C-alpha cells in the first residue's frame, strides 16, 4: 500500500533535517532524501506534518540556536553559523520573530543551563522548537 511508505519516506526527510541542520541543507536535499520532486515533496510534507519543510528546517535551526544561547557563551554570529544559517541579519530577524525577542535579549532572560539538565535531547528538540511565524498577522494572535 502506498499509504504506508509515503509518510515513512517523508519521515526520512524530516530525520535528515534533524540530523544535518548544521550543514547548509536545503529543501531540495530533503526532497531528494524522500525521493520526491521538490513541489510534490513540499505539499506532501505539509500534509503529513502540518508545516512546510523550509519552515520545519528553519525552526529546527532556531531551536538549536536557542539552546546554544541558553547553554553556551558562544557569540550570536558563531551560533548562527553553527546551526547551518549563513546570514546573521536574517538569523536575528527569524529568531526575533519566533521568540519575540532578539538572541541577545533571549540569552539574558534565560536561567542557566543546569535547569534543563535531565530532559532528553529528543524532547528538547521537539518541544523547544518554536512555531513558525510570518510577518503577516493573518493567523490570529501570536500567543493564543
Amino acid at each position, binding site marked *: 500500500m502506498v499509504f504506508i511508505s509515503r509518510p515513512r519516506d517523508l519521515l526520512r526527510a524530516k530525520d535528515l533535517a534533524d540530523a544535518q541542520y548544521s550543514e547548509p541543507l536545503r529543501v531540495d536535499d530533503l526532497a531528494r532524501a524522500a525521493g520526491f520532486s521538490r513541489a510534490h515533496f513540499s505539499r506532501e510534507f505539509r500534509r503529513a506534518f502540518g508545516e512546510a519543510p523550509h519552515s520545519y528546517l528553519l525552526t529546527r535551526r532556531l531551536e538549536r540556536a536557542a539552546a546554544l544561547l541558553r547553554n553556551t557563551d558562544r557569540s550570536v554570529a558563531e551560533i548562527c553559523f553553527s546551526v547551518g544559517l549563513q546570514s546573521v541579519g536574517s538569523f536575528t530577524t527569524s529568531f526575533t520573530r519566533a521568540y519575540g525577542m532578539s538572541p541577545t535579549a533571549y540569552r539574558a532572560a534565560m536561567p542557566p543551563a543546569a535547569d534543563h539538565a*535531565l530532559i532528553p535531547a529528543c524532547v528538547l528538540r521537539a518541544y523547544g522548537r518554536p512555531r513558525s511565524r510570518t510577518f503577516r498577522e493573518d493567523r490570529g494572535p501570536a500567543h493564543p
Partner: protein
Amino acid sequence: MIRIGTAQLWVHDQDEALEFYTKQVGMEVRSDVTVAELGNFRWLTVSAATQPDIAVVLMAIPGPPVMDAETAQQVRTLMAKGFAGTIFLETDDCQAAYEELRGRGVEFAEAPEERPYGVDAAFRDPSGNNIRLVEPREITG
C-alpha cells in the same frame, strides 16, 4: 512491588522488525509464538541479552475485528510519521555502540552527542519508531 516486564512497539512487518532488532541491534528473541486459534496471532518479543526479564513486544497491527481498518490505517500512518513509539536504550559506551550498530547497517538520525545527562544518539527502526541510545552520565550528589 511493581516492575516493568514488557512494553510494546507497533511494527509494520514482524519479520523485518525481528531481523532488525536481533541481527542489527543485537537483541535476543524472547518469545516467538504463533497461535492458530487466535487467527495466527504472533506474540513476538525481544530483549537485551543482559535483561532477559524485560521484553519489547513487536506487535503487528491487527485487522478487523480486533482493530477496524480505519484505525489500523491511522496507526500505520502515525508509525510511519514517527509518532507511534519510542524506546530509550542504555549503554555503557554510546560511541562504541553507535559504531557497532552502524557497522551492522543501522542508519542513525543523530550521531552521539554530549548532553547534560550523558551522551546519546538516535536511530529509527524500519517501521519509523524512534529509538534512542543513551550513555547516562553518573549523577553525583
